[in-house]
């Protein structure tokens, strides 16, 4: 017995992923997330222009500039992915296009990891070679002043945007169960931390500590590499049909347990075993149920599917299969349930 819940009305098509209609909260979150990503793209473009104008020969500023360009990747990945994910299943794509999210997540995590590694390499070689960064003066409007102040100003500007935008995106990532948005929030964190590090570094250079900039960058790069690596690992393992995890990939998703619990609450069900994978936003559920007595009726099976779909808007594509014995090819989901990888 299978159902993928086609809503009869067809809907406006604004708030849906494939056949999964979004509840109003999620539809609003999606709209807001799209708007935030467009704002991010516009802001980052302005930051790229500003940093290009002030970077001079500073290697640190050059790295910040490359980073700002890579920061465009996650918002673009998000906008492309949600656009694709909306499409209804076709004959060629019977599962729909939800996996576009996983590809977006993979793309965004590679960008994040690249930013971290580039910064780490740059800072590391700077320290090893004991490079003394030259920061001279700027002549502007008849005034001569130390260029460091200009760089700090530029970094305050480029840091403030990501600081605010990243914070606004995190709750939306949870609401929509969107991992591209989550990786993007990590990218924004990388951005503002790098900006803060550069400010500290330039001030350090100002008082004669040549290693300050590279030192601060190295510390920050370690955190970015860790975030990038974690996102990359989970994005790849989600593509390998890992059991569904929470939006931040910290834990197995509670719904993976709730599915069996809901089935076992039904009077006619003796035992059940299910597989829940994250297709991107929505989950694909295959549940095998062992009836207590005779084979269940079609009504009973339909009720079981309904019970699962009532758990959460993410549970949409559901297959419930009555079996004589639970398949031993599927490992017990409780094994390693607490393992948070």
């Amino acid at each position, binding site marked *: 017995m299978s159902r993928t819940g086609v809503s009869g009305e067809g809907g406006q098509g604004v708030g849906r992923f494939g056949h999964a209609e979004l509840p109003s909260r999620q539809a609003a979150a999606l709209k807001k997330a799209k708007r935030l990503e467009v704002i991010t793209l516009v802001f980052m473009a302005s930051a790229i222009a500003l940093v290009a104008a002030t970077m001079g020969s500073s290697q640190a500023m050059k790295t910040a500039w490359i980073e700002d360009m890579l920061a465009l990747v996650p918002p673009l990945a998000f906008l492309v992915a949600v656009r694709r994910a909306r499409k209804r299943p076709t004959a060629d794509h019977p599962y729909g296009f939800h996996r576009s999210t996983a590809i977006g997540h993979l793309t965004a995590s590679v960008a994040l990891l690249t930013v971290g590694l580039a910064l780490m390499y740059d800072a590391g070689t700077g320290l090893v070679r004991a490079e003394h960064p030259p920061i001279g*003066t700027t*002549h502007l409007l008849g005034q001569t002043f*130390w260029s*460091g102040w200009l760089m700090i100003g530029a970094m305050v500007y480029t840091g403030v945007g990501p600081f605010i935008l990243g914070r606004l995106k995190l709750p939306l990532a949870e609401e929509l169960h969107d991992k591209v948005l989550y990786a993007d929030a990590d990218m924004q964190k990388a951005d503002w931390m790098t900006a803060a590090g550069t400010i500290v570094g330039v*001030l350090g250079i100002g*008082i004669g500590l*040549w290693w300050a900039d590279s030192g*601060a960058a190295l510390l920050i790069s370690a955190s970015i590499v860790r975030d990038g690596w974690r996102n990359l690992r989970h994005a790849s393992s989600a593509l390998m049909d890992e059991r569904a995890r929470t939006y931040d990939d910290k834990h197995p998703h509670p719904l993976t347990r709730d599915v069996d619990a809901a089935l076992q609450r039904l009077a006619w069900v003796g035992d059940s075993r299910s597989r829940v994978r994250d297709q991107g936003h929505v989950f694909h559920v295959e549940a095998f149920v062992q009836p207590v007595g005779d084979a269940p009726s079609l009504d009973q099976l339909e009720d079981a599917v309904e019970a699962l779909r009532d758990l959460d808007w993410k549970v949409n594509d559901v297959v419930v299969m009555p079996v004589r014995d639970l398949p031993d090819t599927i490992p017990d989901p409780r094994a390693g349930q607490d393992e948070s990888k």
Partner: protein
Amino acid sequence: MTRREGRGSGPASTRRAVLAIGVGLLLGGCGLTIPTDPDGTLDQVRSSGTLRVGASPRTGWVELDGERAPGGREPQLVEGFAEHLGADVEWTVAGEEHLVTMLEDGELDLAVGGFTDANLWVDKVGLTRPYAEVVVDGSTEAHVMMVPMGENALQSELERWLDENKNGGGS
């Protein structure tokens, strides 16, 4: 194998470390001027009363005439800058590459030789902001002087002085 993610702890500890560096810089910064030379070149020049300058010949910019001190547009500017710092110039005449090595080794404070901002030593020495532009064969040459890499107080002081004196001292 259980490994805790500790998403909160990582960035937080980094943030703390950055904050610690920041506070350290602020405390250490009391009574210091910005910018300051990591190797104290500018202070050294002022206290010793000697500006060690390397010169490499280029017609019009640095002219050599036997045993006499280098002449031409740039040596004149350098003498003026040394006077501004209360120092005398100690000249070293050598080829460009040798001058760069000496700057790297901290044996020179400044080098002139009709260098432009398109020169190839940019990752070994500090270049001043261009202080003069000349059109040669239809393309613009932006002229710079060389200072030890990252000696930002000296570089800033020189750039500032050149802004004010490039026309008076040089022509």
